């Protein structure tokens, strides 16, 4: 036996079994077979390798090893002999014949392994059972002692099957309960749903007679009949047969639909009463040019119903019903149907449920097609308030003293001209309520008269006009004093020129006292004693805080300057040959201070180059030469000892690589990885040492408190 081939075989087997894949790598397997074909010695070796791998506590390893064994089993007689000689162990490791040696995790793979192993044993038995006695014995053992049902695809043992049955029964019971519940619910709710359905339907037909199948439903026919009568009364005899201009959309539709009937009736009426009357009469009476006059209206099916006062109640009900259906009935019915399908209930119930669902959905669709334009809630509330005309109190906007905003049409009432106040002009620039109607401007003559009268009124301090005047004066003076015009509201009209240059700053205390002497600036009054007449005499009640006073008088303005984008790049050479593309202002986080460099990344200034050289040297010093990572890795590979090559070097370079210990077989499922379940996380919290200690302490404390030493002494004192 060739040592080299032998080693190669071992290597191949290890690679194949630790691949973690559900299928073997065919190319490698072929190689294995090629080696095994050479001689029986290799097969023996292969058998030992396989058995060692089968003994591993990892289902994936076992599964792969098992697959390899099956591959070779069909090929080599010698392999069959050696495997069958130790079939007990093989079965223990793959079929789980020994209850004390369960298959290792992961579970799914173990299950797969077991199923496949059982099937394979059966296949082996049919082909080789005659020739290999132990194989037949093993098969009978599985069949009779372990009661494996080979017909069962799931290949379960008896106990497993029983457990499965029990589970099934339990589920069935639960479903049955659910079904009963659903049935009962359905019985209870069916009438409710029907009711709301009819309600919805009625609302819809009331708002909008069913246009799509006008002639089919009797109800709709009736309404159309009625509407057509009405139409006749209003439109036809007014000789405006189908002008839909002043009808709203829905009426138009009715008109259209009743058109044919009208025509017919017209014709009939003509023929009945005035037979043989010439066309002129007809034209005069009907406004139609001929008997064969046809009018085709194209009606867009796109409806748009607007909520207004007339249909408000209907729309409200409809909306309620809509909400009820979408949020309540539909989900409930959905759950029923789910239960029914799961349990497999009789046809009738199922049909009932689906019918209900269908009709509900139909109604919803219809509702959507209506495109009802709901009013917003706020408006509805306001409207409700408006409707209550008999209410004693009328909601009036707050008004006390100065009123910054006066509606245009009320301006005359207050004795103001419409453009005098800048504040109003501002308000006019952004109209708040589009619904507001601009009032007609007052007549000039009356205006002057009123103005005169108001001038007098201004003298009266109780009048609103007086306050306004005072305020106006104040504003005017302050505006003139400020000059620089920091108050945009007041200055914009008067000093349009300086506006662009002046900075806009937020209002502050300094502006409030602009140009005035502030007597109390920075003074703090200390009221040390709250007493009525007793006062500690030596305490100075007032003292001045310099800082505070400075704050009152000055303002600090941050000058941010303007942003200048960075033009330069770091350009330090990267290990991969490219240049660093970072555009930091001063310092690159990877390469330090940014210095001017040429195209290939060398520093232009010689002193920079020298400095870099020195730094590099210093780093080398820290990382001695013998710790060359490549060398260390080689040594490690040779000796198998960890010298720490992974952590010494290349913090910056490796970056992305994880620092954690490398697993031996990265393809296999990690068994040690604890499941990250909510339970485990909670466990980590609850059972961690410190929290346990804390809880124990608290409990101890509670215990000791129970037995306080002299707590109940009075008891003994009485005796």
């Amino acid at each position: 036996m060739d040592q080299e081939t032998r080693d190669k075989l071992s290597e191949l087997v290890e690679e194949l079994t630790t691949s973690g894949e559900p299928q073997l790598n065919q190319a490698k397997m072929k190689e294995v077979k090629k080696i095994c074909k050479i001689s029986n010695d290799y097969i023996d070796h292969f058998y030992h390798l396989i058995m060692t791998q089968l003994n591993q506590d990892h289902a994936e390893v076992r599964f792969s090893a098992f697959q390899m064994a099956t591959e070779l089993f069909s090929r080599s007689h010698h392999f069959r002999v050696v495997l069958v000689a130790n079939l007990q162990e093989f079965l223990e490791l793959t079929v789980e014949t020994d209850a004390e040696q369960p298959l290792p995790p992961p579970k799914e793979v173990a299950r797969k392994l077991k199923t496949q192993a059982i099937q394979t044993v059966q296949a082996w038995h049919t082909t080789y059972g005659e020739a290999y006695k132990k194989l037949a014995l093993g098969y009978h053992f599985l069949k009779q002692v372990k009661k494996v049902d080979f017909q069962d695809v799931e290949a379960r043992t008896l106990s497993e099957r029983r457990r499965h049955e029990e589970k099934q029964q339990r589920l069935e019971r639960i479903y049955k309960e659910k079904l009963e519940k659903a049935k009962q619910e359905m019985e209870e709710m069916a009438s409710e749903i029907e009711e709301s359905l009819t309600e919805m339907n009625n609302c819809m037909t009331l708002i909008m007679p069913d246009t799509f199948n006008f002639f089919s439903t009797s109800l709709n026919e009736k309404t159309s009949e009625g509407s057509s009568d009405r139409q006749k009364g209003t439109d036809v005899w007014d000789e405006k047969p189908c002008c839909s201009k002043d009808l709203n959309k829905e009426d138009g539709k009715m008109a259209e639909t009743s058109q044919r009937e009208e025509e017919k009736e017209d014709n009939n009426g003509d023929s009945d009463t005035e037979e043989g009357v010439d066309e002129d009469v007809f034209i005069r009476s009907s406004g139609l040019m001929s008997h064969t006059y046809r009018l085709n209206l194209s009606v867009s099916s796109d409806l748009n119903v607007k909520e207004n006062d007339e249909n408000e109640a209907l729309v409200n009900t409809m909306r309620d019903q809509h909400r009820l259906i979408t949020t309540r009935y539909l989900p409930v019915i959905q759950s029923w149907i789910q239960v029914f399908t799961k349990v497999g209930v009789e046809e009738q119930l199922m049909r009932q449920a689906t019918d209900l669902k269908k009709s509900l959905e139909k109604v919803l669709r219809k509702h959507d097609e209506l495109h009802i334009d709901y009013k917003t809630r706020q408006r509805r509330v306001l409207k409700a308030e408006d409707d209550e005309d008999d209410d004693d109190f009328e909601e009036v906007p707050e008004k006390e003293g100065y009123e910054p905003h006066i509606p245009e049409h009320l301006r005359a009432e207050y004795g103001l001209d419409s453009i005098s106040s800048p504040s109003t002009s501002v308000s006019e620039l952004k109209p708040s309520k589009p619904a507001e109607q601009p009032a007609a401007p007052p007549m000039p003559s009356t205006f002057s008269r009123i103005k005169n009268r108001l001038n007098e009124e201004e003298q009266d301090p109780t009048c609103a006009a007086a306050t306004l005047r005072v305020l106006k004066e104040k504003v005017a003076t302050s505006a003139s004093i400020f000059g620089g015009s920091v108050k945009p509201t007041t200055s914009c009209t008067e000093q349009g020129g300086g506006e662009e240059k002046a900075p806009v700053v937020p209002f502050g205390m300094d502006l409030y006292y602009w140009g005035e002497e502030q007597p109390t600036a920075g003074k703090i009054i200390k009221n040390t004693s709250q007493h009525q007449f007793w006062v500690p005499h030596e305490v100075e009640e007032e003292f001045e805080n310099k800082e505070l006073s400075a704050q009152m008088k000055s303002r600090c303005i941050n000058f941010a300057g303007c942003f200048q984008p960075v033009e330069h790049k770091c350009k330090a050479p990267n290990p991969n040959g490219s240049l660093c593309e970072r555009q930091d202002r001063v310092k690159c986080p990877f390469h330090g201070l940014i210095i001017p460099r040429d195209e290939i990344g060398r520093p232009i200034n010689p002193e920079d180059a020298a400095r870099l050289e020195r730094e590099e040297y210093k780093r080398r010093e820290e990382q001695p030469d013998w710790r060359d990572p490549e060398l260390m890795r080689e040594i490690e590979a040779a000796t198998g000892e960890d010298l720490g090559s992974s952590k010494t070097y290349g913090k910056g370079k490796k970056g992305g690589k994880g620092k954690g210990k490398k697993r031996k077989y990265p393809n296999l499922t990690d068994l040690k990885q604890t499941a990250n379940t909510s339970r485990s996380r909670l466990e980590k919290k609850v059972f961690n040492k410190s929290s346990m200690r804390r809880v124990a302490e608290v409990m101890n404390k509670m215990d000791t408190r129970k037995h306080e030493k002299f707590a109940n002494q009075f008891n003994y004192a009485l005796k």
Partner: protein
Amino acid sequence: MLSFLTARQTGVDDPVRLRRAESTRRVLSLELNHDRDVERIHGNGVNCIDIEVIEGRYMLSGGSDGVIVIYDLENSTKKSHYTCKAVCTVGRSNRHVHKFSVETVQWYPYDTGMFVSSSFDKSMKVWDTETLKPADVFQFDGNVYCHHMSTIARKHSLIAVGTKDPKVQLCDLKSGSRIHVLQGHRGEILSVQWSPRYEHILATASTDGRVRMWDVRRAAGSLFTLDQFNGDKSKASSEAVNTAHNGRVNGLHFTDDGLYLLTTGTDDRMRLWNSATGHNTLVNYGKVVNESRKGVKFTVSRGCSPEFVFVPCGTSVAVYGLYTGELVTTLRGHYNNVDCCKFHPDYQVLYSGGKDCNILAWVPVLRQPDVEDEAKTGGAQAAVNPAFEDAWSSEED
């Protein structure tokens, strides 16, 4: 072989020598044989088997479901392949069947018309083989672990019975009554065996770790107790004085000539004793795995020059050299624990029964054909059985 034959012909050798040499050779080549099957009757584990000594033709087996089966071992078909047929069965439907597991079955040593079986249903039944009806039933207070009838007794027809009770019962087949008890043990009696050399000598093994030798003519007590340390008190702890094993002693077997006694215990040891003196021969058999709570039925070969002992050991049967203690081979074939084995001295065939319901026959492999005609027969064999061929696909070249 040829030299043995010529020596036998010329009368140089003792006639026994050839026989011994040949049977030893056969024992050494025991293998699970494809040609010999035993019909699968038992639906549960096989607890005990016994082969009658008169013809060596019929085999009794007792199952853990109470079923008793009698097999015919004789191959009269003149074909190499043979399945041992069940001659008759005491099945579950039989009115007299044992309710619980049958622990021991034994043929009457002088006639196949009678056999005795004992069971966990606290009874021992003496069966008439013809009618398959019990001729007599002995009832006991506890589970019956074992019983044994002397194979050489001429002056008595006693059956020693080991039950849950520490007293060994002696039942007389002549009177059909329990005539005697042997007191001395402190635990359940797991195994009893009459000496094949002296008809009144009886050995019993118990859960208290002791093995006692009795002379049934002496009512007072046991002759002696086997001591694993041979009386060397210093080695033994106080409890271990006069014990044969440190755990339960659950197996007991005399060698064929009755000079030695083999015992097995749950301390995973097997010991060989001089049956005359009770001296521990200190043969080291190594570890003999033994976890059974009941009696273990092992057997010793007969008629070989170094004798062998066959011990159930987990799922396999271990073959040891009796006097050397060397593990000769391990017979692996059962898929569950092996409970009993019996050696057929005429054909050097070993039968073993286990919890996997199988009774396996271990048959000596015939001599390989000589070198010159190997190629021819090999080819013929392959032609006969295609399953033995290799099936390498050509693509792997």
